[in-house]
């Protein structure tokens, strides 16, 4: 999976940072910053939960074919 964050839509409620701080952060102005965009394991699961919780639709997931 690859995470996308549309900073233009973010309303800074911080739901994502609260859900998975290893993946999401906020800049000083409160807007979402992706710390990593291809989380794995439990972090990936929690990141998906954060995407569902985001109130502004700023977060999305692109599924990727594993090319490993």
């Amino acid at each position: 999976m690859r995470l996308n964050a549309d900073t233009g839509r973010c309303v800074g409620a911080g739901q994502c940072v609260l859900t998975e701080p290893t993946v999401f952060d906020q800049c000083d102005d409160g807007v979402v910053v992706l710390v990593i965009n291809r989380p794995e394991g439990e972090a990936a699961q929690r990141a998906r939960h954060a995407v569902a919780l985001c109130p502004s639709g700023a977060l999305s997931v692109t599924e990727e074919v594993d090319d490993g």
Partner: protein
Amino acid sequence: MTETASSRLTDTEFPVQRECPFAEPVEYEQIREQSSIAMVRLTGGGEAWWISGHEQGRAVLADRRFSSDRRKANFPFVSTDPAIRKRLHAQPLSLISMDGAEHTQARRALIGEFTVRRLAALRPRIQQIVDQCIDEMLTTDQHCADLVKTLSLPVPSLVICELLGVPYADHDFFQEHTATLVRRNTASEVRQHSIDELNAYLGALIDRKLASPDDDLLGRQIARQHRDGTFDRSSMVSLAFLLLVAGHETTANMISLGVVGLLQHPEQLAMIKDDPDKTPLAIEELLRFFTIVDSVTSRVATEDVRFGDTTINAGDGVVVSGLSADWDPTVFADPDRLDLERGARHHLAFGFGPHQCLGQNLARLELQIVFDTLFHRIPTLRLAAPLDKIPFKTDAAIYGARELPVAW
């Protein structure tokens, strides 16, 4: 739809008063079972769409075709009195009433103040405030107190003082007037007097910070607006007032109701006492269970919007019932069961969409510190009155308890 149900529902005005703190009004359940979207009569007059399903509620609140502008005709629960409407137009537009780009810009200016990191830095100070309130509670010889007066109201009030940068010497003044605002039996002139006093106080505070900017929320906002050349004193006063009101009574009521909920479910309370790591999740369930702000999340449609086979027409008022959404059994199984481990983060207690509560993580932090500290420091805490003798705010827009007698 059965005959009796439909005739009863047309007689019902929404929102319905909440009698029991541990149940949604039966009418909510009845109407939700019939339809997640229905036209209803409103208390205070007029009609609006009543959105009772969780999924539909989220959809409306995330959809920019619904306006938050309280000045628009048909906005639910805004008085039809022309004088009140006129006043609404005369005041600076509040953040909660803005739409689209204007809202994004105004909100953007503030969100940096509420980042998870900035709030974490406030934790020690909030802990201190909570400890002081509990110290004071424990000095009484009678081993009993009204929790609303001793803890629920002072904590958020003092946290807002901290946030706005109200000097220590003025805390008593500030607390006294904010308490007057929320007291139900306050006469309207007395309430207006407190509003005037607080506005005058905030104005003077802003003037002082304008002269020598402090490094606190108001100081930074003033400096920022000054830099951008957008500074406007009256909007700054109304912003300070909004933060004060929004963060005060809501958190206070959640503290009181949370304590009631936990004391009435001792086995669940024991769980978070044993493992405070579980408190954050427990708080989400308490927020869902009580959803104290039920229908503030109202909107007006600006275009025709189709929901299944229902069309909401442009200009129609829409009420998203947070309580009904959070008791939607298709999303929260057995909603009347308080289950602290449920995992209820997707509740609508803070709303949803671009207006979702700006102070939600501050509220979470306060609740967490209060519950962890209170039950740890006063392990024998109990209600000092039977549930049916506790004066719950059945008639208020924000549900809560007016008094909460406790003993230990």
